[in-house]
């Protein structure tokens, strides 16, 4: 069990680093948008205000994700010493699961808005086709995280049930 928890801890660290790098990249993009908005005199090439908003929303989302991953890492570390079946673990798993679902939905929405705002012409393909392809891409990109989120919620429920059973067992004399 502790070996598995160690591996999970390392993976969460890697995940946190990945999200942090993504955050840095997104800050760079935001900086570029703001810079072009202020200094670019050409109205066509300068970034629109809505693109800046989308970028800021994504940054907020990444910070939200980082915060929840940090909390999750704490739980994994703490549960090494104590029993996994306790109320705080249930709450932590549940909140992380819900956070992943919110992240997935918000990220998908941002992706769609991003597509609608960007006027990239992809050859002869119609806008409807491009829109459909982007939705498909968005769904397939967020699907693994959604599955992880549902697994975390199921584990949270298992921890809750286990906690109830443990409590009952502790009170059986």
């Amino acid at each position, binding site marked *: 069990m502790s070996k598995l928890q160690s591996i999970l801890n390392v993976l969460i660290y890697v995940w946190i680093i990945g999200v942090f790098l993504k955050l840095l990249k997104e800050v760079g993009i935001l900086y570029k948008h703001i810079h072009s908005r202020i200094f670019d005199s050409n109205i066509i090439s300068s970034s629109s205000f809505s693109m800046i908003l989308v970028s800021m929303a994504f940054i907020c989302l990444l910070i939200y994700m980082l915060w929840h991953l940090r909390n999750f890492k704490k739980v994994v570390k703490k549960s090494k010493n104590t029993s996994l079946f306790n109320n705080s673990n249930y709450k932590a798993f549940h909140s992380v699961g819900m956070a992943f679902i919110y992240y997935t939905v918000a990220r998908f929405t941002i992706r769609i808005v991003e597509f609608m705002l960007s006027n990239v012409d992809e050859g002869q393909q119609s806008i409807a086709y491009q829109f459909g392809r982007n939705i498909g891409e968005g769904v397939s990109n967020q699907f693994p995280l959604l599955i992880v989120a549902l697994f975390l919620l199921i584990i949270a429920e298992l921890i809750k049930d286990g906690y109830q059973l443990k*409590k*009952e067992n502790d*009170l*059986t*004399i």
Partner: protein
Amino acid sequence: MPIIVNLDVMLAKRKMKSKNLAEQIGITTANLSILKSGKAKAIRFTTLEAICKSLDCQPSDLLEYQE
């Protein structure tokens, strides 16, 4: 819970201390205290048997149903 544990009454009748009973039946005083206070969710037959043997009584002397 409508099940009342009369363990303290039986201990007083037998003039026995909780600590001694706990030692005799092989459970901790903390667990015996949980049993006495009625916070216990369940009692094992083995524990009940040991208590009855130590206090020389019947299970009905220890447990009572009240509505």
